[in-house]
């Protein structure tokens, strides 16, 4: 290359032309496979908590609140958009979007929640699981209808009593 070889950059620049975009005045350049914010369909969600266990940064958390409610909270601020929750959701309640323009001046905009009513035990009236998860279990495994109405504690006791009867032992009570 001659002494003035580097002037070739002008040719390169002319060929490349203008590559910057007028974003935000034109649509952003995200590919079809881009992973953005998730959306939780509250009609489908059963409150099982699989997504909470899979979520690496704790963007999804679950807590029992008030009288008889279980709340699934999604905080976009912690989300790393890995979509593991979508992989593990048993009822396909979580959908991925390509949305990424999430900046806001109000931190509450970053919170989302699905409120579930908890199931109550027919025996002791204690709260357990959620109404929807109970329905899901009954639908998937009808055989469980004998004990799905009871909380895990009562279920355990019932089972123990059944064993005792079979073996001719005495009840603990």
């Amino acid at each position, binding site marked *: *290359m001659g*002494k003035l*070889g*580097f002037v*070739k*950059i002008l040719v*390169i*620049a002319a060929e*490349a032309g203008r*590559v910057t975009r007028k974003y935000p005045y034109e649509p952003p*350049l*995200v*590919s*079809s*496979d*881009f*992973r953005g914010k998730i959306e939780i369909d509250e009609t489908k969600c059963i409150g099982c908590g699989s997504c909470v266990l*899979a*979520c*690496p*940064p704790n963007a999804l958390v679950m807590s029992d609140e008030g009288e008889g409610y279980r709340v699934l909270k999604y905080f976009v601020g912690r989300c*790393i*958009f*890995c*979509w*593991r929750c979508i*992989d593990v959701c048993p009822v396909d309640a979580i959908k991925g979007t390509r949305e990424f323009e999430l900046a806001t001046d109000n931190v509450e905009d970053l919170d989302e929640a699905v409120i579930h009513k908890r199931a109550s035990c027919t025996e002791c009236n204690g709260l357990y699981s959620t109404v929807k998860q109970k329905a899901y279990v009954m639908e998937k495994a009808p055989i469980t209808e004998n004990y799905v109405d009871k909380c895990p504690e009562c279920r355990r006791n019932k089972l123990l009593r059944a064993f005792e009867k079979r073996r001719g032992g005495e009840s603990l009570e």
Partner: protein
Amino acid sequence: MVNKQIIDNYRELALSLGASDFAHSGDTVYIVVDRERLRGLAEALYWKKNCYFRTCAATDETKINGFLALYHIFGDDRNGLNIVVKTYTEPNNPVIPSISDIVPAADWCELEAYDLVGVEFSGRKLYRFMLPPTWPKGLYPLRKDTPYNYRPGLPVSGERISESPVSAVVPVGPYHPALHEPEYFELYVEGEKVVDVKYRGFHVHRGIEKLAETRMTYQQINFLAERICGICGFEHSVCYAQTVEKAAKIDVPERALFIRSIVLEVERIHSHLLWIGVAAHLLGYDTGFMHSWRIRELVMYLAELLTGSRKTYGINLIGGVRKDINEEKKKKILETLELVEKDFKKLVDTMLGVPELVKRLKGTGILPREEARKLSVVGPVARGSGLDRDIRRDLPYAAYSYAEFKVPVYDDGDNLSRLLVRVDEVLGSISIIRQLLDQLPRGEIMAEDIEIPEGRIATSSVEAPRGENVHFIITGRGKPYRWRIRAPTYQNIPALKIMLEGENLADAPLTIASIDPCFSCTDRIYVIRGGNRYRMILPRRY
């Protein structure tokens, strides 16, 4: 497969030097040695057997066997072997002889072990290395009885590396709007010549190892691992996943291995394009910077298409990958690569045709071969100094054994050599992706049964754009018992002192950048004592 003769040689050597145990599995040799005999064995491995030093990992094994343990990991790259040397020590008097005088590359990791696990090293100067100066004495974060969320409530304190009272000190860094990452360099100059270098890093230590060992699960850690680095994240998650897979002997479907290799090479291309741009910028050739990054943008779009995120995040799991490559994507990759290759060649030709640029690159920041060997430097820094090492070829992982590629080696050890290594590697990566896409096998991309037994040990390496990543894992229940990470910059920063001394001040920013440092994945301290007539603090400009 590793030659049996070579393993036998190692067995003989280890036993003749008093090793108490020897085992071999796959590409790793395990040796247990007494404290008194460690130095002899280290010397034989590092200097007689010509092994490189990868890193060391101190582990609190009191819950398993009541001891603290130190694993020195050597690498016999020519024979494709990892050599793990284990030494035990009692928790109440945890003294192990230092090997940093025999193996200079072990300097940093010994200090790290001292700070985080509380292993004392005899025969060397020990000082606070990673933790803040006001951290309570006797509190070791990586001991198993320290909770991960314990915060000792430190008083805020200032910190100076040098005690000499010099007026007119402008403290630029560690946190400063002009810096991209927190780090702190002090260059001591006489006239225009640099006479000494001091580096203080470690401002962004995030306790990743501790977090993974205490509150995350195996599959969650993939997403933590890729966040070790902002540029070569995928390398870390591959390295983590394949180390666990190796420990648990999980068979990963071939297609998944091919996809990993392809994405790894995409990452290498964008990382090197980024670096070439930055180097041009530091030399005042901003045209080159703009064009390099323009080309890089095509690759970033490709990364997003392949992984769902511009930063190649989120597709690795233990046992495989989550995203497949279909015909449409394959076509897009090949199209993009063609454009990138054509544009990149033109750009490099033009850049290297700028005489001022080449003059400033040639003969500056020299790292001689012997020094590079002594410090076991990795990646383009090693290959620019005549060390012919590349994990992709020496210990093939993912699908690299299916591709043919040349490892570029330049002997001059200057900034130009390191640039040329990276230029060659970009073209090499493009060729590797083409070869792998061509052979991409059909099938699943995720292993079916994934069971990870407790108490297994494995170490593996991945050639990241900056050099070799080393991960070391002891498996535990539901999460690793110990997970040790060594990022490439950790191994390369000590070489900066040699590169910078005697150098013109004006060349310093480029030389510092020439190792392509990544501080958030390294984050350690380096302190060098020496005469300081004048003092100058220089922000790294990228």
